[in-house]
């Protein structure tokens, strides 16, 4: 690059330069230059049009194309994985939505536990045991024996004179009767138990059993058992919230 010292401020030099610019130099030279510059213009226009075309991919070199393709494959793979995961989730949700059986089972189980815990009313066949005790000789231990006997015989829900009997039910002796779960009860007592009636009756009637024990108490105490085809227990036990015990998963 031979840089000629610039004639700054020299008007004649500038005029000479402009003159050189426009001065024709013979048609052959001009023609050659024209052809080449026309080619340049053509190339420029075509390049610009190609670059601003639908995509620059046509102009990309082979290794660029390979890189772009690799990127796209990686992206495709990632999206495919995402799709598979989402499809799995959708399938699971669909299965779950169709799982009315599981829901029904859970409801049944909740009802079962509710009856067992005394938080739900219950109805079904069973026995009604009336214990008459005009002299007040039947104590809490006799009633507890009767309840235990009924449980052993498979009673599923028990009600003692309007008080639901559950696992935590307490029976406390008082002078004039029995306090069951804080409720004062007086004779005559009525035990209503849902279960297989004949089995329950047999369990109470066995020699030395509940009936015998009540009769043995004397003073007019007596137990009568009747098997019923339908007993409705509406008394409920109020379940307290647990403070310490948490269910294990």
């Amino acid at each position, binding site marked *: 690059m031979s840089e000629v010292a610039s*004639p700054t401020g020299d008007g004649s030099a500038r005029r000479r330069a402009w003159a*050189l610019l426009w001065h024709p130099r013979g048609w052959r030279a001009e023609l050659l230059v024209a052809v080449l510059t*026309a080619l*340049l213009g053509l*190339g420029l226009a075509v390049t610009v049009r190609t670059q601003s075309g639908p995509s620059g991919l046509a102009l990309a070199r082979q290794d660029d194309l390979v890189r772009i393709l690799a990127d796209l494959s990686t992206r495709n793979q990632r999206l495919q994985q995402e799709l598979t995961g989402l499809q799995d989730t959708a399938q699971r949700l669909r299965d779950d939505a169709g799982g009315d059986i599981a829901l029904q089972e859970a409801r049944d189980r909740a009802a079962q536990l509710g009856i067992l815990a005394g938080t739900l009313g219950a109805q079904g066949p069973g026995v009604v045991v009336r214990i008459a005790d005009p002299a007040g000789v039947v104590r809490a231990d006799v009633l507890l024996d009767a309840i235990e006997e009924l449980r052993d015989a498979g009673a599923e829900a028990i009600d003692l004179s309007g008080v639901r009997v559950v696992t935590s039910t307490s029976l406390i002796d008082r002078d004039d009767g029995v306090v069951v779960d804080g409720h004062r009860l007086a004779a005559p007592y009525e035990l209503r138990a849902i279960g297989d009636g004949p089995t329950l009756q047999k369990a109470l009637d066995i020699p030395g059993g509940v009936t015998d024990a009540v009769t043995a108490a004397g003073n007019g105490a007596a137990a009568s058992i009747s098997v019923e085809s339908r007993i409705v227990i509406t008394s409920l036990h109020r379940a307290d919230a647990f403070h310490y015990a948490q269910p294990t998963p």
Partner: protein
Amino acid sequence: MIAVVALVAGLIAGRFLDLTAPDWLDPYLPIAVVAALDAVFGGLRARLDDVFSDRVFVVSFISNVVVAVLIVFLGDRLGVGSQLSTAVVVVLGIRIFSNAAAIRRRLFGA
């Protein structure tokens, strides 16, 4: 003067004729155009210095284009095509800038 007219004519032709470069030329066309631009600026500068020769212009134009395309083609074969094309564009860009500066000095004295 005719050169300017030819350039404009070429631009118009390229713009309005549905010309498409052949596929094998596609990656090299931009480099070729930049190389040709460099040659044209060099020619312009030579003219202003009153040392213009049509023979030199033609040879430099064609050789510029061929060498630039050849370098990039070779780079593609060697796996460094994008880097080499960047190198070519940088070098040609510098030359175009220095030529443009010289032309500016001749024409405007600044």
